[in-house]
């Protein structure tokens, strides 16, 4: 059983694993961080996106053995001092989610986009979110919310 320390949402966590290929997703969920969701297991849908550093990465295909020394942020870790992240606040204001199963991964992708590009165009938002799927059809609200979080109108 290998083990090391991983920072998750700012908290150092001891991670022990028998299988080096175990995806990060299952480790997060075993810690009770269940906002990150399984959708496809092959990185095609974006439901399991987390931030590794400032990059959005599908946790379902990220082996746990590859993360030593890394800092992970999940949806639960975006709020600061009890205040929702601006992207979360915009999603609430725009009443984005229907079932909401994709919401966690979409918010993470949007946060990564805004970290890289403070004032994205609508085309930037669409491109950045193209690897996130939504089945309920909340897309127009998502775009509006991300633009609003960036201080722009969609």
């Amino acid at each position: 059983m290998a083990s090391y320390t991983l920072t998750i949402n700012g908290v150092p966590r001891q991670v022990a694993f028998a299988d080096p290929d175990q995806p990060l997703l299952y480790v997060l969920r075993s810690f009770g961080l269940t906002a990150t969701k399984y959708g496809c297991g092959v990185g095609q849908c974006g439901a399991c996106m987390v931030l590794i550093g400032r990059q959005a990465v599908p946790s379902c295909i990220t082996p746990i053995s590859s993360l030593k020394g890394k800092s992970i942020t999940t949806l639960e870790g975006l709020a600061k001092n009890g205040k929702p992240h601006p992207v979360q606040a915009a999603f609430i204001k725009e009443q984005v989610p229907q079932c909401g199963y994709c919401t966690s991964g979409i918010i993470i992708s949007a946060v990564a986009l805004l970290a890289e590009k403070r004032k994205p165009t609508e085309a930037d938002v669409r491109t950045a979110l193209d690897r996130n799927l939504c089945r309920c059809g909340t897309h127009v609200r998502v775009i509006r919310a991300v633009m609003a979080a960036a201080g722009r109108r969609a």
Partner: protein
Amino acid sequence: MGAPVKGVQLSRRAVVKGGALTVAFMLGGARGKASAQGAARARVLDPQQVDAFLSVNADGTVTIFSGKVDLGQGLRIAYRQIVAEELGVGLDMINLIEGDTALTPNQGRTSGSNGIQRGGVQLRQAAATARNALFHLAAEKLEVKAEELDLADGVFTARGSGKSIAFAKLIGGRRFDLKVDPKAPLKDPANYSIVGKPLPRPDVPAKCLGRHIYMHDFHLPGMLHARVIRPPALGAKLESVDESSLKAVPGARLVRLKDFLAVVAADEWTAIRGARALQAQWSAGTGLPAQDKLIELLRSDPSISDETLENKGAPVTTKPDGAKSLKASYFWPMQSHASLGPSCAAAYVRGDTATIWTASQGTHGNQTSFARFLGLPKDKVRLIYFEGSGCYGMNGHEDAAADAAIVSRAVGRPVRVQWSREDELGWDPKGPPQLIDIAGSMAPDGRLIDWKTEMWLPERTKGLPYIPLLGPQAAGLDDVAGINAGLIWQNGDPPYAAEHIEVIAHWLKWTPLRPAPLRSPGKPANCYAVESFVDELAAAAGLDPVEVRLRGLKDPRAIEVLKRVAAMMQWQPRPSPGPDKTAAVARGRGIAFTHYKHSETYVAMGMEVAVERASGKIKIETVYCAHDCGQIINPDTVRAQVEGCILQTLSRVLMEEVKFDRDRVTSVDWASYPILRFSDVPRLEIELIDRPKEKPVGAGEAACTAVGAALANAVFDATGARLRTVPFTPERVKATLEGQAS
């Protein structure tokens, strides 16, 4: 009648302990944990009784008990608005319990877009009955006439004396013991202050902050995780299992009942690894037809029965000079629910009781089926709704619940089953294939003369038999009576006046995969065919598509949605196709209309598209929709539903088709079963027509039905090419443009 039982206030609390999520059932805001049976005894479940729907608790809060459930469509806020308005309490005083067979009345499945028009209307009548009773109780207590009382936020105040009394004092913690009075007067919509407002949904913050507990996040102490291994070919039997193959995965354990095979472990990843490692031998399957022969097979399969669904007017013997007669055939393929998260459920079967946690849209309806295959009395089986990944009819949620129950019974522990992506797309019950032929004619002035629709549909969708669940079937357990696949023949006739209209269903014994209801079952295909054919006739007659439709309609609400959409689009009357048809990028507009089930919501939809001839790619620029679902409870949730109807159905029309080989479904990931992406999403222009004096009808399905035809008609207007087969992939569009296919 016995004394009212106190302590009906039951809340479902999720407790996070040591990183694990535990769900406890707490009784009465008090300390004791209620057993399922204790809770069931305390509740009135007869939907004729007010107590089945509502309780006023000792602290003055109100609990709604709803047999219908929120899947993300917004019933949680809409039901609160209805009850707050009709009962006279503040919105924040209301709790809601959904879809628990032990606590809520059986109001039927949450389906057919009837959450408001059935569930909400029942609830409103119960609340009106309760308010009436409370007025009388308060008048008695305060010794005034009921007419002298004002009611606000659950407190009655006598206008003269200023004396007041709260709901909690009047009935808190006790039963109403009242039948729902169908004549209890309803509040005049002119005096509404809560219904009709775009209030935010209570589950949205938790969903955005990562605190919403989905079915997938459910946990019980001692719970195991299982993966079920489905056969490599449809109908294959399990011949042998090499148990030693599991040795490579310590902690994984096998469960086998006949052809039902599962791997169980304490954690999910071990169960997944075990399922991957397990070696099993399966027989050959029962076989599937060649996919490219499907349409011929549907047409040539001997039908069990032919049913005349509609026969209005007298057969036409003579047609006016210049009448245009056409025939056309349309096809809509099998499609998956393609839920973003795979189906998931948990179960605890011990001794003679079973508790099933499920995202099913029909917990009550499944109680009988689950009791049957578990061999338990119905009242010992409790199904509790937990929100899952969005479902749009019946995906694999019921199957996963049956899987969990079977494995839990075998191991005697609580078991959670989550499907894989491959299993979800491969094994969820499918929207059935629909083949539709139409023949008809139009007079030179745009009047429809005669119309005949013939549809080929699997017999199971007719309603009577069942959708078998995979687990019990494989395990050789009593097969379960499931649900029908939705009234998929509806809207097969035009909504316009004609001298003679005939609709015939050829019911087929056979269908390649399990059919199930998929959002607005059948009607997206039927309306696609009907509204495309109207367009074809209009084009043949050289008439404007909007004018032809308006000519055939009398219902003012139908006329209004059509005129509204035409105005939104600044529609210029002219026949299709338009002037652009030979351009490299041809632009066009199309329109379609539905009166859902001929009795519910009115939808008119228009689209503006650009078609790239060289690639066959359709770019949808703007979708316009005018929508009249009668009284609107919450305009923002209605709008969200209409947006979802449009985008999900665009996905179905543009890209979705279940693919299969001779053994099994092969479109089992998002590459082989693509759905709409952010780059594909058009601008949406939606106008909602609120009619507070009309009954509220559904918004979760109706707008789906106009999408296919509005798009096909727009592509025809742009290019002169008629798309009669879904999906409109670039390859198909290109081939149609080149005249190689239709």
